[in-house]
């Protein structure tokens, strides 16, 4: 090892400085043809080195990344840096907001060869489209629904949460949007806009004798489930796969007849994208079965929106068993919610929690 002299340290520091400067200037160089700049969370699929390499070898298009650490930061970057990005990963709820602000351009699905097998329910989601035009290629999805201990009766409705058979054996997700959604499904309403919040509150209050705890992290869920503190729970589809695969927990994910409460991330092209063609090619690669199978089996991934890609997974793959395409027919997707409604949802959940605590 070289000694840590002052000269060496200076060399190191200046090298780091040069590297830092050249790296930060990369996104700006991306205007040239044959390069696309992708805006995404770090470490979320698009920036897998092996996949980018394979894509560049196949198409000759170089892929550069820029990252955001919150969804509002992503919108701010789109608003303030026109022409900087070619492809952006956004949640359905945020997509509606971006489309309303004219930040995205319509997708030409004829240039996405994998598009025909993308699930229709996802493609036609109102958050992704406006005036009959699609503004994002649905990419991956997941949902919150019921999870039950293996070997117990598989429930077919959220009404089971209030079933006296599960007295003191139920865990709820400590999340206002999800719980209001469940309350809405229990009282036969739309998860994004329940008109009768009193009915939602009453439905959630009715499960009080069963509620043992409210969980807020996956780790907490795993520990409590392993300690047999509850048998039935609201849980994430991806979380149930991880619990079963990594922690070997006897959990079965169940989507009852009312449907799961879903989320979906899409790939959108900013209105000012310099290389929309290249971006479409990359979006197509992102939903390609070849890419998805490798991502899902080697790294771990949410469910692909492309049913052909999901079907290409090994038959015994847990993620494939949990994310059945037929669930998409009944799944409600969390949409953009106006601030006053979000506040009302939060108040409902606080009131219900206070009632549970009495």
């Amino acid at each position, binding site marked *: 090892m070289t000694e840590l002299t002052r000269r060496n340290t200076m060399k190191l520091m200046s090298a780091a400085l040069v590297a830092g400067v050249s790296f930060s200037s990369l996104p700006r160089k991306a205007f040239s043809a044959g390069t696309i700049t992708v805006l995404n969370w770090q470490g979320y699929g698009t920036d897998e080195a092996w996949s980018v390499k394979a894509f560049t070898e196949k198409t000759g298009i170089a892929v550069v990344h820029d990252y955001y650490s919150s969804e*509002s930061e992503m919108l701010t970057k789109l608003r303030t840096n026109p022409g900087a990005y070619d492809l952006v990963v956004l949640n359905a709820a945020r997509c509606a907001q971006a489309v309303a602000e004219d930040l995205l351009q319509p997708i030409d699905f004829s240039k996405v060869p994998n598009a025909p097998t993308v699930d229709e329910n996802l493609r036609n989601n109102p958050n992704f489209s406006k005036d009959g035009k699609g503004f994002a290629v649905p990419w991956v999805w997941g949902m919150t629904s019921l999870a039950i201990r293996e070997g117990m009766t598989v429930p077919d409705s959220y009404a089971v949460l209030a079933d006296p058979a599960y007295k003191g054996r139920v865990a709820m997700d*400590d*999340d*206002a949007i999800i719980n209001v959604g469940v309350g809405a499904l229990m009282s036969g309403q739309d998860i994004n806009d329940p008109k009768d919040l009193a009915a939602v509150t009453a439905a959630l209050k009715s499960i009080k004798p069963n*509620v*043992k*705890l*409210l969980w*807020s992290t996956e780790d*907490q869920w795993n*520990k409590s489930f392993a*300690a*047999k*503190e509850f048998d039935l729970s609201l849980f994430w589809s991806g979380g149930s796969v991880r619990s079963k695969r990594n922690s070997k927990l006897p959990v079965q994910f169940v989507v009852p007849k009312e449907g799961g409460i879903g989320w979906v991330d899409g790939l959108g092209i900013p209105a000012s994208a310099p290389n929309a063609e290249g971006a479409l090619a990359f979006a197509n690669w992102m939903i390609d079965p070849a890419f998805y199978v490798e991502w899902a089996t080697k790294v771990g991934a949410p469910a692909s929106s492309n049913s052909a890609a999901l079907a290409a997974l090994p038959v015994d793959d847990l993620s494939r068993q949990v994310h059945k395409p037929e669930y998409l027919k009944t799944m409600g997707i969390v949409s953009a919610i106006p*601030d006053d409604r*979000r*506040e009302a949802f*939060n*108040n409902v959940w*606080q*009131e219900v*929690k*206070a*009632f*549970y*605590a*009495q």
Partner: protein
Amino acid sequence: MHSNQATSASERGPSGPRSRGALPSWVSAAALLLPTYGWLTLAVFLPLLTMLVFSFMSATPMGKAPIVFTLKQYRAFIDQPYLVGIGVTSLLIGFWTTLFCAILGFLAAVALVRSTFGKTREMLLILILLPFWTNGLVRVFSWTMVLRENGFLDNLLHMIAPDVGSIGFLYTRYAIVVGLVHGYLPYMILTCYIALVAIDDAIMEAAASLGARWWTILFKILVPLAAPGLISGSVLIFIPVIGSFMEPRILGGRVGVTMGTVIEDQFTQAFNWPLGASLSFTLLAVVLAIFATFSGVLRRGTTA
């Protein structure tokens, strides 16, 4: 308290040594106080002021929503009456935690002061402080292992009596109080220890030689003389406990809803900073009102 010191310093100033006839005394007083007050302004006053301003806003001032100044956040306790019940729960949890801390902490401090054999006192002090160095989250999670059904407590019981049912009481208010008492007990031990160590042993010997029993010595001598420690320890514990959110959330399960968790939810999940801030200031006002009510007792206690 600070202003008292300041005035006494400036009063002392003219009569103090001024051999070189240099700067007037208020300059040195100001220079000495500046770091303290500068730090207080920066670290306490400005953030609090920001939150106070937030608490009058209609929405969190980030994003594009227009901001209107309003008093509606302070109506939360009227608009959402269930909050009153949560507030009472928080105060009760604070009361019981402080009470148990006072009893246990005082007795532990007495034992600490009385143990004069060799180096036992130092050893005991280290043993009391050692758990305090570990992360609070770790300590709370380890309580979940002890208190849950089929946890350590149950295993221990079943070793003695295999047929009895579970005595695990995780996810109850008792569990919350246990976790909080464990977390805050060292404050009480230390404040009581400092008060007790100053008491002259001769006073107790005199009482004993005049025929006082141990309980007379305890309640007529030790408790009154250690009252400043007990009271400052109680204040130190009561205030953070009623705003605590980690212990109720982890140990309380379904019943773990306190003002602390409601306020935390407003800042994290609901992204409604104004409501969170207004609830915090309402809680602060309630605490100040409680201390104002008992200020007579507190003053008598601390100057005793």
